[in-house]
């Protein structure tokens, strides 16, 4: 990448303080930064194995750990319509025993190779993350082969996963953060295959062995998967190793699934989700939009940085530092196959919930109404550019980002041309993107103790009340005299 000459306007803020005459001259003002060093990103090389498994290899020297990410396009949107959570169910069983290793054996094996194995499930894909010490490369890949080719979904493990998932969800239903985000997902993805992601504990009893086996057999195929492998090995050496252990994984035709684009809600909606006795209150505000173009995604990144990317962004400075309505307030943008989501999340003081919602809404709307100053845009771009190397430093963070890029087909812009793409963003582009994407109706979700929050929401024209599981309870509407009425 090329060296950059960025605006350093913010630099002056440091030097406007008192000057002590007796001190050394060099202490009075900050030294200027040196020229920015070139960022040399590791090269990504690709190979396709004979069984159509796509492999991306990244060579990192002096790294004692290997990082393998397996993406399988078997996300929650592909769960059968009457069996929400099946994708999660299958993913949860990955690596939990094979035909030759019991679960305790797997636990001991992973510890013996300095390994960790985790899995995460999204709407579009499942991501299995496997880190281990490079000196144990062969046994580690051998285990991965067993987990994919010889899984052993025993009755005991199936029951165990159903039990622990139920218990886990029931426990999370006392957490306002989880409850609010899940409810926002339900509202934003209503009647879309992505809605299946927000299942509640009630559906777990419907999970069964047949649907599990069918889902695994159908989607866990090399032609429906990708591997990102980071180690000190070269492309040839790494590909050969992976091929040795995974070449028997058989491809199968997978019928393409149509995915209709996400559609923004037709009107604004406020939801209060009751989490009895919760001392905390969380607010989530979001909207969805059709899949943005590549350049728009960089506009969104800058826009997000201005609004709520860090503690120096508008939301945090306003809601926490200026008005003390919230402990924190951040925003984020995420992209899926069917579109994008933009949301704000805040931990709000319960007594300030109505005012906090008002400020969050105002901050989002302001971006769609007034262009952001060039100075603020340059500051946001500086942050994104300078923070980028920090995000890819650790081997595990690096691999995670690589996997996300690959899973979302982000393309070269998001890796080797990241700096240039961010540099091209300007105030006009950000304003146009904000108008197009953030002018949509919003869904506002509040989660906390209803008995505390209801009176704080008395000024709202209308809002819907839900229980912690997300079941609709009633609608509160204010009449002309300002009195609240409940309608079921």
């Amino acid at each position, binding site marked *: 990448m090329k060296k950059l000459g960025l605006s350093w306007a913010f630099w002056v803020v440091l030097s406007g303080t008192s000057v002590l005459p007796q001190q050394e001259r060099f202490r009075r003002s900050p*030294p200027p*930064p040196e020229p920015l060093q070139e960022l040399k990103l590791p090269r990504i090389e690709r190979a396709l194995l004979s069984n159509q498994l796509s492999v991306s290899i990244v060579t990192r020297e002096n790294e004692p750990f290997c990082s393998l990410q397996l993406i399988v396009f078997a996300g929650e949107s592909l769960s059968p319509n009457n069996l929400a959570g099946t994708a999660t169910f299958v993913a949860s069983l990955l690596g939990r025993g094979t035909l030759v290793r019991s679960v305790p054996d797997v636990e001991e094996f992973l510890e013996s190779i300095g390994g960790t194995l985790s899995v995460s499930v999204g709407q579009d894909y499942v991501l299995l993350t496997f880190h281990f010490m490079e000196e144990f490369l062969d046994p580690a890949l051998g285990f991965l082969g067993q987990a994919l080719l010889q899984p052993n979904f025993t009755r005991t493990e199936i029951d165990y996963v159903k039990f622990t998932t139920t218990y886990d969800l029931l426990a999370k239903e006392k957490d306002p953060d989880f409850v609010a985000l899940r409810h926002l997902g339900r509202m934003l993805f209503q009647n879309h295959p992505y809605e299946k992601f927000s299942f509640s504990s009630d559906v777990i009893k419907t999970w069964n062995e047949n649907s599990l086996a069918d889902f695994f057999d159908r989607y866990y195929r090399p032609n429906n998967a990708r591997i990102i492998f980071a180690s000190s090995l070269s492309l040839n050496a790494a590909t050969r190793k992976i091929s040795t252990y995974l070449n028997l994984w058989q491809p199968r035709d997978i019928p393409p699934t149509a995915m209709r684009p996400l559609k923004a809600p037709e009107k604004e909606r406020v939801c209060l989700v009751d989490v009895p006795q919760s001392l905390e209150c969380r607010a989530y505000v979001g909207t969805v939009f059709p899949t943005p173009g590549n350049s728009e995604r960089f506009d969104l990144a800058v826009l997000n940085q201005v609004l709520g990317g860090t503690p120096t962004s508008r939301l945090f400075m306003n809601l926490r530092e200026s008005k003390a309505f919230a402990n924190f307030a951040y925003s984020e943008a995420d992209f899926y196959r069917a579109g994008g989501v933009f949301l704000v999340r805040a931990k709000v003081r319960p007594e300030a919930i109505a005012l906090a919602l008002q400020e969050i809404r105002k901050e989002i709307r302001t971006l769609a109404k007034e262009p952001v100053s060039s100075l603020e845009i340059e500051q946001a771009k500086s942050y994104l550019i300078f923070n980028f190397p920090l995000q890819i430093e*650790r081997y595990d963070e690096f691999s995670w980002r690589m996997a996300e890029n690959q899973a979302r087909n982000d393309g070269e812009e998001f890796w080797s041309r990241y700096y240039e793409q961010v540099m091209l963003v300007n105030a006009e582009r950000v304003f146009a993107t904000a108008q197009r994407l953030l002018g949509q109706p919003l869904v506002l979700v509040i989660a906390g103790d209803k008995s505390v929050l209801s009176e704080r929401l008395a000024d709202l024209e209308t809002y819907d009340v839900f229980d912690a599981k997300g079941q609709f309870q009633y609608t509160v509407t204010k009449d002309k005299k300002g009195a609240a009425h409940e309608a079921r």
Partner: protein
Amino acid sequence: MFRRSRSMFNHDRKQARLGISLGWILVFAAPLLGQSGPNFPLSHVRLKNGLEVILSEDTSLPIVSVAVVYNVGSVHEPSGKAGLAYIMENLMFSGSANVAPFQHFNFINRVGGELSASTSEDRTLFYQTVPSNQLAPVLWLESDRMKSLEMSEGAFERARNALLDDLLQKKSELYFASQLSFDQLVYSDFAHSHPVLGTEEDVRNLTVDDARNFYANYYVPNNAVLCITGNFNKLSARELVVRYFETIPRGKDIGPSFEPPVYTRQPVVRTFQDVLAAAPAFYMGFRIAPPFSNDFYTLSIVDYILFRGRSSRLTRRLLGRDNKIAYQASGGIEKRKDRAIYRIFCVVNNQAMAERCQEAIFSELDRLKRVVLSERDLVRYKTMFKQDYLNRLSSTMDKAIFLCESFLALKNFDDFPLELEKYMKVTSTDIIGIVNRYFTLDNSIILNVKTK
């Protein structure tokens, strides 16, 4: 954002330049550690004012981390001044002679960097990672607050109120009261037994002069370690360090603070009624050798055998899927300056189960005393240790923190490259000896927690 994750198995000047170049000791960490050990250059020097400086270059990315650790924590607080160290951490962001309040934080953020700070019983740490071209401004910022921190009444009041808020929240945490009671049982003196956050009464009585005195005594170059890791030119970095830090006046010498404790070996069992306990629980402690003594290396591997990872002995015995006898069980080595204990905490169903758990713990310890650990198991536990050790070196910030802490902990920092090897040399026989020496009934302290 909409993603469900599950961790399945985890676990300047010409003269100065000349002077300093003679004083730098270059250490290469690699060859002694075997092929998968850490492999990085390391050098250190003590400036004329006593500041210890560690440099470790890594040119893989254009970033640099700067950590400053002050050899001070809650154990250094005078009686009646609990919470002072924690307040000082906060006050270090309140501005200095040439830096406006909170501009340190704002600067790091605006250049895309990340920063944080922490206070423990025995050290206070400040660290940041920034693009490598920002090294000079960061050293300027760190040196200004080391040389000339400004503490107004207002800033002190804000820091104290923030701490009182934290204390209020902490008091509402389950088992917090019983945890403090156990600390007092284990550590006989005020210095080691009081919490890092302090006590409400002490915090309310603190004054800005207490903070100024504390800063003058402990936030001095001869009580600090500065570590720079990442992508920098060593020669330029040395010049910058000398320029910004060497003229900061040396503080008073800080002598060894604590007399070695005298303990009588007899079992201690007490009961505590905790109004915030959700279920009965117990704490169990064993006083062990101080950090980085000869026995400490074996004790660290014993920690992995007992409680690290899913296959560890006490995890399986107490929390096994088919024979679970505790709701929650955790254990590990706790270090407080010159002292260490092995601490276990279990939440159980009822008192009978507490007794069953305690019997199970002693039974596992007894097995470890009598039956030689298989080579396969020993290698597995040591591999887990090595994984965690190397993980602490996997980013410039992690490495800077680890190097600072190691400097304060090790008798001779030049031995750092040999450290991992010492752990890897632990044998099954060493383990039997250490468990017999420390994990005995007469060296145990138990606090049974009852619900109200």
